[in-house]
Structure formats: structure tokens, C-alpha cells
């Protein structure tokens, strides 16, 4: 373990990978809290899958495989996916889960089709586009990490600026509307931040697994605190640690892909939190219930 930590600092490639996955873990952890609290956990999944056609289209249109170009394409179709979900769900006869499932599969299907078509081309210029399916953290270079940090930093800054508005919107949207806040605009802004969190992580974790990094750290953090501010900070920390840990594991044991390792680390944090958090954890709740039953039984005997 300590050997792994040392490697994180000394090995240039590994340091970049770990820094990149830590940044994306922190950003998606913080922004994912709002998705979880607003019961929109699956929106992140729809957005990340909807990003795939954007990646391929961006390459088809520009011929460039530069990360910013592909990620911009991903952001555009990801955002379109989110817009499609809310447009469909506004129709009263289509429920939100239906809209989510529909958008996810249609956009992802279109992305896979495009990918298959371009891979059938005789030249190899498209090579590497498919790494966005599961991510390729090992390919992260310093510039990627800086870009991820800058983009994610702006998203977190926006979150901080509109903190009380987002909190009110998430807790009681009607109250926000009555108070005169532009609720739809705020809702779009929060969705946009979710899209940003997704595209920040695409390169390293890929479209298929990205949504779990939005959900797992937030769900884990919720177990430990009853304050929104602490939950967001904690989710960011859990996300960052999962990112670094996943990178270290895959660096130590070659053959283990980074993206899935990061996702498993975040999921492990969630499982531990679910079981062992002092107030909400399953174990402590079971123990409290057992203690209560014992007390009631002994009181019953005494009477």
C-alpha cells in the first residue's frame, strides 16, 4: 500500500492518472449530490450514454481526435439527451423513468452504430474512439489533467455561487417558484453542471461507467451527515480518494483497467457507508433495534 502511494508521487504517468481520476472523482462527487437528492440519479446515466454519439460525430465533422474537440461533442449530445428527457417527461403520459430509459438506449444505440460504421473504414484514423466506451485513464497526460481541473473547477464554482438557490430548488421547487426564482433556468443550469461532470470523466472512465461516479460518492456521503454542505464536501473527498485509489490499484497490478477500478473503489466506499455509518448504517440500526427489543422484553418481564 505504502509502495503504491510512493509510486503515485514518483511515477510521472501514474501521478497524472491518479491526479486526473482524483479530480474527476471530486467534481462528480460534489455535483452528483444534487442529482441524488433530487431523485435524478439516472439522469447522469442517460447523459453519459448520450455522450457517445457526440464523440464520434465530433471526430467525423472535424477529423480531430484532440480531447477538447471530442469532449465538446460529448457535452453537446449529452446535453441534448438531458433536454430530450425533460421534453419527454413534460408530456404527462410519459413518466420520467420511461423517458430516461428511452433516451439512454436510443442515444447509446446511435453512438454504437456510428462507432461501428467508422470502424469499418479502411484506414485506421478512427482508432481509439472506442476507448471512450470504458475510458482510458492511462492515456491521461498533464494537459488533460489541467483541463479537467479547470473545467471541473468552474462547475464547482458555479455550484458555490448559486448554493442557496440550488438548495432551495432541490428541497422545495414550488417554494422557489413562489419566491420568484427562475426555476426552469436554475434546473437547466444544474443539469448543465451534471453534463460538465460527465464530460470531465469520459476520457478516464468512459460513457458506460461514468454515472456510478456521480452516484456512489454522493450516496456514500449521505450516510455520514445530515447537512447538505458537509455531504457535498464529503462526496468530493470520497470521489477523489476513490479516483486515486483506483489509479493506484491499476498502476500496481497491470492488466486491471483504471476506470472500472475507480468505480469499484467508489462502490466499496458506498457499501461500507451503507453498512457502518453510525446513524444511518444498517449494522448500527440493527444493533439499536436489538437493544430496544431487549429493553422492551425485560420491561415486559418485569411487569
Amino acid at each position: 500500500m505504502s509502495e503504491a502511494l510512493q509510486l503515485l508521487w514518483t511515477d510521472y504517468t501514474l501521478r497524472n492518472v491518479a491526479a486526473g481520476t482524483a479530480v474527476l472523482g471530486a467534481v462528480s462527487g460534489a455535483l452528483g449530490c444534487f442529482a441524488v437528492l433530487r431523485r435524478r440519479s439516472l439522469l447522469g446515466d442517460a447523459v453519459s450514454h448520450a455522450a457517445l454519439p457526440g464523440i464520434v460525430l465530433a471526430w467525423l465533422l472535424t477529423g480531430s481526435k484532440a480531447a477538447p474537440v471530442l469532449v465538446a461533442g460529448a457535452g453537446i449530445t449529452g446535453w441534448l439527451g438531458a433536454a430530450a428527457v425533460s421534453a419527454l417527461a413534460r408530456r404527462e403520459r410519459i413518466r420520467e423513468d420511461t423517458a430516461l430509459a428511452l433516451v439512454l438506449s436510443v442515444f447509446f444505440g446511435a453512438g454504437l452504430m456510428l462507432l461501428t460504421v467508422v470502424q469499418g473504414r479502411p484506414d485506421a484514423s478512427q482508432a481509439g474512439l472506442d476507448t471512450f466506451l470504458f475510458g482510458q485513464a492511462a492515456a491521461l497526460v498533464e494537459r488533460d489533467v489541467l483541463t479537467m481541473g479547470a473545467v471541473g473547477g468552474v462547475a464547482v464554482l458555479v455550484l458555490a455561487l448559486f448554493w442557496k438557490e440550488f438548495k432551495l430548488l432541490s428541497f422545495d421547487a414550488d417554494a422557489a417558484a413562489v419566491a420568484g426564482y427562475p426555476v426552469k433556468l436554475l434546473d437547466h443550469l444544474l443539469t448543465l453542471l451534471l453534463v460538465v461532470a460527465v464530460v470531465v470523466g469520459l476520457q478516464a472512465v468512459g460513457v458506460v461507467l461514468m454515472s456510478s461516479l456521480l452516484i456512489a460518492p454522493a450516496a456514500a456521503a449521505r450516510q455520514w451527515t445530515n447537512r447538505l454542505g458537509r455531504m457535498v464536501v464529503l462526496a468530493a473527498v470520497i470521489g477523489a480518494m476513490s479516483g486515486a485509489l483506483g489509479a493506484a490499484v491499476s498502476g500496481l497490478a497491470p492488466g486491471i483497467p483504471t476506470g472500472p477500478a475507480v468505480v469499484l473503489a467508489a462502490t466499496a466506499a458506498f457499501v461500507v457507508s451503507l453498512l457502518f455509518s453510525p446513524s444511518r448504517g444498517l449494522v448500527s440500526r440493527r444493533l439499536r433495534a436489538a437493544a430496544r427489543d431487549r429493553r422492551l422484553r425485560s420491561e415486559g418481564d418485569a411487569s
Partner: protein
Amino acid sequence: MNDDVVKNRHTETSTVHPATDAAVSVHDLTVAYREQPVLWDVDLDIPSGVLAAIVGPNGAGKTTLLKSLLDLVPSVSGRIRFHGEPFRARRRDVAYVPQRGSVDWDFPTTVADVVTMGTYRRLGWLRRPGHTEHEAAMTALRRVGMADLATRQISELSGGQQQRVFLARALVQDASVYIMDEPFQGVDATTERTIIELLKELRGEGRTVLVVHHDLQTVPDYFDWVALLNVRLVAAGPVREVFTQENLRLAYGGRVGFAGTKEPTSGPDKDPTSSYMGRIRP
């Protein structure tokens, strides 16, 4: 019998100002959900400084009426005025207490924080609540008898306590019109007493309080003004004049005090509202 209160439509043009002493004035309001009318041609003038109840069977459109007053649901037609002005011009004078069940009480926040949310709009963008806002929240919590629970996580509250938190959040807004959706729903006796005393205090301060209410027994004790609603407005006015067996029968379809799903007794007058009886509103 209440033609004077209920209907003077079709004679007014949109340029005519409603009575200026009306705190809330509703003119020709029709709201439809899908193809079904939920509110049909409602005219209502609620005088300033009254404690008013809106009663009617399930599916009568009571919540919808409140939400249309607050621009939360779109209306097919109608004009709504608060002290003679549209809602968007009078936002700060209007406080809303939604149904308790409309939010997730497992949201990670505290009692004091929820109450502080009532100060956000006054604060404006980018500014954070500070000492003044916290003090205002504590004052409101003291008024509803919840000051000692200020740091409590909201999921640990009883139904009555949740209701009082919502009430405190409305109190910090220092509004002139209070609009409340079933504040007595599922609360304990202590909370019910606290709330009604508070509502009477608000009226004593010259504010107008508009409450969707379910318990017909308590209407004469609690309220001085009442509107009976069943998609259409059946009657509205002072409780003494309007809260009659006759009007209740008209509103509830022959089963006074029973807001249920059974068939209403269909009178000879092909009651246009009977088809909406018992519809459960979200």
C-alpha cells in the same frame, strides 16, 4: 342565494379594477388538467384581514386553486389579483405553506436552515444568509414553539413539527397574505392549537390568511370567512351567512361532512360537478 358574492362576471371588462379592499381577487378562473376542468369559472374576492377557509370534497380543486393563485399551475383563463396587482408584482407580500407531503423530509438539512429559506428572496442572488437572517428564523421558530429544535435534522420531526417548520418559514417572510394548503392535516392536537392561535394572531395583525381546510366541524370556530368549492364556486362569504346546510349539500352532493368517493345524490339539476366528485387530486 349568494349571487351578490359569487357572480358579477361578464359585466366587468378587464380594465375595471377589482374592489381594492380585496386581498385576493379571482376573476373567471378556469383550470384544466388534461381535458378535465379542475376549476370552472371561479370568481372570488377575499377581503383583506380575514381568516378564510376553502372547503370542498376531494377533487374539488382546492389545492389547484391555491396553486393557480401562485402561478404554479397554468390556467386556461382567468385573472388573479393581490391587493389589485398581479401576483408577480406582489410576490413579497405573499407567503405559501405547501402541503407537508410535498417535500422530501429526508433532505439533509436542519430545522433552522429550512426556516432561513424564507429569507432567501429578500437576500437576493449571491448573498448568503447571515446573523440577521438567522435571528429572523429563530424568532419565527419561537412563535411556533420550535426554537429548541432549531438544530434538529428535519427527518427526525413529527408531522406536527414539520408543519410548524413550514409555518415558521412563511412567518419570516413577513407577508400580508398567507396561503396554506391543509396545515391541519395529520397534526397532533397541540400543533393544531398552536397553528390556529398563530393564524388568529396573523389576522389580528391585519394580514389575510387563506387556508385549504378539511374538517368541516371546526370551520365556524376557526374561520370568519369561507369559500365552498366543488370545481365551481358554490358559495363564498362570511361563515355566518354562507356556511349553511344548503350550501354544504350543494358542495358535497348531499352528504354533508363526507368528502368521499361515493356517488353524490344526483339532483334533478344535472349537477355539472358530480362527475368530478371523488377524483383524487395529486
